[in-house]
């Protein structure tokens, strides 16, 4: 039992480090006293308000994270300009659409991240996320141009692919039906892969339609 408890605490270390970093940044000086009080406050907070654990089983790829962030910035700028142009075009009213995008990965974490990033880019945001089927419903601002619906759907898939390239294991990427990371193909040669131990069937949830109008909340 105690081993389990210690593991629980170890998993909260990243949160404590992040909170301490924010504390130090808020004070503005890196001193021993600041760091100590920061650690104290964050441990106290984690003890009083324990967070639900989000299972993270993946491998962080630095190239993937850089690609994800860079592409996100480009997307944000481009989409902001296009929404701005639409706002200033007085004659037209935008005709939007709510579209269904069934995501390919089965993990809640990637669903959340993809939804967050899609909402962050102006021009599309997530109206409803259905967890059991891994489906996002997003509202797109303007779909009057032909092919806009398909493009919006394609953009979400691309976003998910980049998220998975940044944070998922090779096995998960394969299970989701994406190609393996292009920059991993060359270096894989002689290396043994140790991350294949997860059983795929344990997280396979049936792809079914929502059974009733409400979700679980």
């Amino acid at each position: 039992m105690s081993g389990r408890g210690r593991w629980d605490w170890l998993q909260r270390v990243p949160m404590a480090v992040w909170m301490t970093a924010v504390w130090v940044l808020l004070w503005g000086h890196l001193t021993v006293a600041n760091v100590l009080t920061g650690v104290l406050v964050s441990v106290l907070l984690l003890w009083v308000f324990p967070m639900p654990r989000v299972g993270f089983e993946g491998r962080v790829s630095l190239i993937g994270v850089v690609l994800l962030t860079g592409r996100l910035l480009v997307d944000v700028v481009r989409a902001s300009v296009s929404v701005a142009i639409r706002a200033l075009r007085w004659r037209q009213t935008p005709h939007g659409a709510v579209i269904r995008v069934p995501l390919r990965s089965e993990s809640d974490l990637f669903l959340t991240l993809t939804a967050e990033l899609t909402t962050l880019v102006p021009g599309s945001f997530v109206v409803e996320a259905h967890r059991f089927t891994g489906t996002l419903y997003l509202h797109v601002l303007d779909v009057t141009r032909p092919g806009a619906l398909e493009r919006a759907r394609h953009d979400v898939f691309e976003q998910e692919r980049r998220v998975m390239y940044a944070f998922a294991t090779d096995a998960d990427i394969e299970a989701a039906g994406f190609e393996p990371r292009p920059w991993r193909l060359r270096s894989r040669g002689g290396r043994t892969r140790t991350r294949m131990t997860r059983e795929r069937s344990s997280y396979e949830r049936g792809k079914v339609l929502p059974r009733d109008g409400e979700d679980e909340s």
Partner: protein
Amino acid sequence: MNAMMIAASVCLIAGCLLTLVAAIGVARFPDMLARMHAATKPQVLGLMLLMAGLAFGLGSSQLTWKLVLVVVFQLLTAPVAAHMVGRAGYRTGKVRSDLLVRDELTEDLERARLRKES
């Protein structure tokens, strides 16, 4: 120093312009979900530009870190708020269906309801 000031000016003016355009969008767009698209713009790119302008203008490295933190906080929280508001808006029928080209969520909900009844 002069180049820094020019960069700061460009960033600030661009950020303020985006805020104004967003305000125009919020006032002009016909339904709530469309207005939300306009509203997320100053929250993301506008804030980034304003903070960049402030960082260039103040030119002190310690404050730059704080400004980066401001942007990070905003990027973490803005989508949550947008999703909550959008969802509530959709559920309480604030969307004008005559302006929607396609509405697959209503289709799916309808289908699920029919299946439940049968």
